[in-house]
């Protein structure tokens, strides 16, 4: 642990920049995708910064399972390390942003329990990128029911338990997970925005990211509301405030649009309109909203990773690295999982997000 002055980002940024240079590039992904043998993949990864974790994992497991374990281990360790050499202000900002993945993981677990999915499968789709560690997530996934999971969070004193507890009765009545998910989102965003608002220009960057996140959550809600029978009522309930570009009135209006085309047209005043337009072809081709959702996700990842451009003495470098590293791990997992289920190479390549 290094003791750094409250405002000094110099040390952390220098280290993070060096770490960023070691991130994998497209040529590597190409090489990895072409391999059809997991042992060969292990060898290829041996020559990367994943070497240490691969060696550890290979002792206990083999093949795809070893790679997966190594990736999860590396992610958790890297993020801990980044936090360890940041200044106190930087730590506060970055850990607040890391909450995004905690929320994501909790939602995944809740969804899994709700649909009675086998705990092993739930654990398989988690990535311990936030403050919740792998052990905690695994234990949460093994709970028998939603209430049990939420109670466990409370038992451990994790603050996300509170908003969930409030909504658990409603969930029990309606069996509608969206109540819980919405409570979680609102809690996270309100708490985080309040926290970063007090932290100067660096806080601004974090705020930007958070607000973009809110926008995307709202957009995803809008896309799903397409199928709803009572869009207006649900819209009122599901709106998350404090987004960057999408205000409540616009949200309501868009919720009432009949089809996706109109929706996107309505969004053309925002940055998201053009992005979704670009993905329209894919949407029409496959007929599923997944293409649109993916476009938004890609935009968000690229925005996050792009935070590194700009002030070399600010928190942007750390944020950019975190996003880029997380994306790298996700890409690697996609390649490995794709291979495991026999996805054709072309398809795997399409799934990768490249920053």
């Amino acid at each position, binding site marked *: 642990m290094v003791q*750094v002055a409250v405002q*000094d980002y*110099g*040390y*952390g*940024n*220098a*280290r*993070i*920049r*060096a*770490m960023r240079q070691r991130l994998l590039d497209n040529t590597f992904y190409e090489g990895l995708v072409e391999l059809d043998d997991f042992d060969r993949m292990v060898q290829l990864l041996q020559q990367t910064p994943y070497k240490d974790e691969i060696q550890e994992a290979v002792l206990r497991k083999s093949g795809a399972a070893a790679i997966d374990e190594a990736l999860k281990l590396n992610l958790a360790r890297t993020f801990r390390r980044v936090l360890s*050499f940041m200044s106190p202000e930087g730590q506060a900002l970055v850990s607040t942003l890391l909450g995004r993945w905690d929320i994501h993981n909790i939602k995944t677990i809740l969804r899994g329990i709700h649909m009675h999915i086998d705990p092993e499968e739930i654990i398989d789709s988690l990535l311990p990128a936030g403050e919740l560690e792998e052990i905690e997530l695994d234990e949460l996934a093994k709970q028998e029911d939603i209430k049990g999971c939420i109670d466990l969070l409370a038992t451990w004193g994790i603050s996300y338990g509170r908003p969930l507890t409030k909504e658990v009765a409603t969930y029990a009545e309606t069996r509608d997970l969206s109540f819980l998910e919405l409570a979680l989102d609102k809690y996270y965003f309100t708490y985080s925005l309040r926290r970063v608002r007090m932290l100067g220009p660096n806080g601004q960057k974090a705020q930007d990211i958070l607000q973009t996140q809110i926008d995307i959550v709202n957009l995803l809600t809008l896309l799903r509301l397409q199928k709803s029978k009572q869009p207006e009522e649900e819209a009122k309930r599901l709106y998350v405030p404090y987004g960057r570009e999408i205000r409540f009135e616009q949200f309501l209006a868009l919720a009432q649009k009949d089809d996706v085309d109109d929706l996107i047209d309505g969004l053309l005043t925002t940055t998201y309109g053009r992005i979704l337009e670009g993905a329209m072809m894919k949407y029409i081709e496959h007929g599923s909203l997944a293409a649109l959702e993916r476009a938004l996700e890609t935009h968000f990842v690229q925005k996050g990773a792009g935070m590194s451009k700009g002030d070399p003495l600010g928190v942007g470098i750390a944020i950019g690295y975190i996003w880029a590293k997380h994306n790298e791990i996700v890409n690697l997992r996609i390649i490995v999982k794709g291979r495991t289920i026999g996805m054709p190479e072309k398809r795997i390549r399409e799934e990768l997000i490249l920053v």
Partner: protein
Amino acid sequence: MDPKAFTIVGKAFFAMLTVAVPAWATAYAQAKIGTAGAGTLAERPEVAGMIIALQALPETMVILGFVIAAMIVTTLK
């Protein structure tokens, strides 16, 4: 006030400034270089020599400031 005393005090004061301000500037610069350099070294030990050289670069400011201060104090009679 006695002009001679004034001259002496003036010389002393400005000589002080000539060293103090560059010294502060050097310290500030080297502090920033130092933390960033420490971070870089932690990740890439092979550039150690370059980092040390870079760390010593701002020294010039305070040295030249000192030279001027010394000249003020001793030679400008």
